């Protein structure tokens, strides 16, 4: 079994307050791992530690085989990230954004052009490739942002609340993109506070107040907590 993420007793404290409290879990290659929880449960903090932009207070973790404390720079070539805040430059065109992000991952121009064309074709963006991002509707922007986050073909991509503020149809399309990525062998680590999105994930962990209160497949969680959907599970755990 090929583990892409291995986390052991990871903790992040701000004074007495533990934003992430002693969590441990593994993520297998090609999996869609859902990181669920209410706002402020510690999802984003955990993700920041895994992507190497936040130092853990204690515990250890490996992502794509690299230590999150000591091998941050090697690690960064292997991961993609899509932040909660919108991360494309509004005053650059679609193509320019792709070129920039591809460039800072060290891709050569030929590869960038190939992958840009592939992406444009796949998403059907032929007529807006030279449009400024600020003029593109939000739903499309999210899809573009996802494609940009995977332009360097990372082993794993972290998505922080990628679907917040998007209509249900676009959300559905967005998940299609995620599935497509997993078919290419990319592992997906996604946080969300939409409990219904849990059904799209292979495995789910439920975070409450910095701790992982439950983890497993959808069926496992539903049976274990005797619930009919994830909302019920969440309400039971949060109580």
């Amino acid at each position, binding site marked *: 079994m090929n583990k892409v993420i291995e986390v052991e007793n990871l903790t992040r404290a701000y004074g007495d307050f533990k934003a992430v409290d002693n969590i441990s879990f593994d993520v297998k290659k090609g999996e869609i791992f859902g990181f669920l929880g209410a706002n402020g449960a510690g999802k984003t903090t955990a993700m*920041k530690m895994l992507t190497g932009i*936040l*130092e853990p207070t204690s515990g250890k973790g490996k992502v794509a085989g690299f230590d999150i404390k000591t091998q941050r720079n090697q690690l960064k070539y292997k991961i993609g990230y899509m932040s909660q805040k*919108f991360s494309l430059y509004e005053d*650059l065109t679609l193509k320019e954004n792709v*070129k920039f*992000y591809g460039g800072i991952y060290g891709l050569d121009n030929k590869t960038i052009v190939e992958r840009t064309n592939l992406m444009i074709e796949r998403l059907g963006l032929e007529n807006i490739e030279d449009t400024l991002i600020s003029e593109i509707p939000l739903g499309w922007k999210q899809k573009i942002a996802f494609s940009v986050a995977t332009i360097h073909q990372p082993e794993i991509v972290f998505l922080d609340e990628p679907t917040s503020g998007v209509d249900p149809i676009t959300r559905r399309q967005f998940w299609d993109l995620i599935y497509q990525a997993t078919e290419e062998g990319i592992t997906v680590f996604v946080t969300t506070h939409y409990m219904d999105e849990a059904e799209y994930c292979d495995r789910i962990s439920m975070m409450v107040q910095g701790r992982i209160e439950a983890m497993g497949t959808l069926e496992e969680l539903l049976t274990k907590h005797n619930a009919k959907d994830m909302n019920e599970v969440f309400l039971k755990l949060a109580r």
Partner: protein
Amino acid sequence: MFRKIRHIIEKEFKQIFRNKTMVGLIFGMPVLQLFILSYAADFEVKNINIFIQDNDKSPTSTELIQKISSSDYFDIKDVDTYKNGLSLVEKNKADVILSIPQDFGKKINTGNKTTIAITLDAINGSKAGVTQNYLQNIILQFSKEKLNEKIKIDVIPGIDLINRNWYNPTLDYKVFMVPGILVLLITMISLFLSSMNIVREKEVGTIEQLNVTPIKKGEFIIGKLLPFVVLGIAEFTIGLLIATLWFHTPIEGSLLLLYIFTIVYLTLILGMGMFISTFTDTQQQAMFIAWFFSVIFILMSGLFTPIESMPDWAQIVSDFNPIKYYVDVMRLVMLKGSSFANVSYQFIIIVIYSIVLNALAVLNYRKTSG
């Protein structure tokens, strides 16, 4: 490594040139201001409104008034009483009142002493001082002439001052001010743009995306810095063209030296901007801090007021003012033709300053928080 930097540079350029209003502002405003403001910064005092209260109305007093009017500095008007004169000063209509006493002519012709009173509006102290100087010289000259007439000696023996004004024999203010104002404009543009730069990525959130990419702090700062160096050099070149073609400011020294110094200076100012950008959270904050320092730098640069006249502690403060060194070197090289050896002291300081600020910017730009 170089490839990554190149992509950042390319992106920064695209962003700068995309916003047409900004491009207009970045290039148009300095050019316009260099043209206009170079004419404004002139300490020479002209068009002084003098009101003369002539209580004598003798040929001698008329002669003195003629002497004053032939000096070109004064606009002469009459006033009947001192009190009326004062109320004119109050209304900002008069700058100075000159009162000639009743028996002025008689006393001079009989070899007695007499007194002329000058009353100045001293709110603008330097203007009042200059006006006083002008009048004293005219009156002294007039006295000498009167004295010579009486004792019939051609020359009062004494010391003649032979006065030479090197480097700017016509005392043209623009020759002095154009390089200085150019320095200010380049400094402001560079400082404002760079201090807004990183904090802007923080504000719109793109910095989070950049933080998870493998780009290193140093690469990031260099990639951001270089486009602004290029921009600064372009501004400098345009400014230099205006200075030489329009204002006929000489460039006595080496052009290469000017450019080398400008590049180092730009890295200093941009490093300072980047540093500000790394520790602020919003563009508003960054702008404030940049504004705060630029006002201090400008007013304490020695461009408008002499550094030598400041108290000692303020002179020490001004040793940390980068504009001071750059203004100094621009003038030395452009107007006096100073060589690299002449300005090596300023050069070393600027280099060290630049290294320190850029190092601070790189260190302070944290890709990892906490």
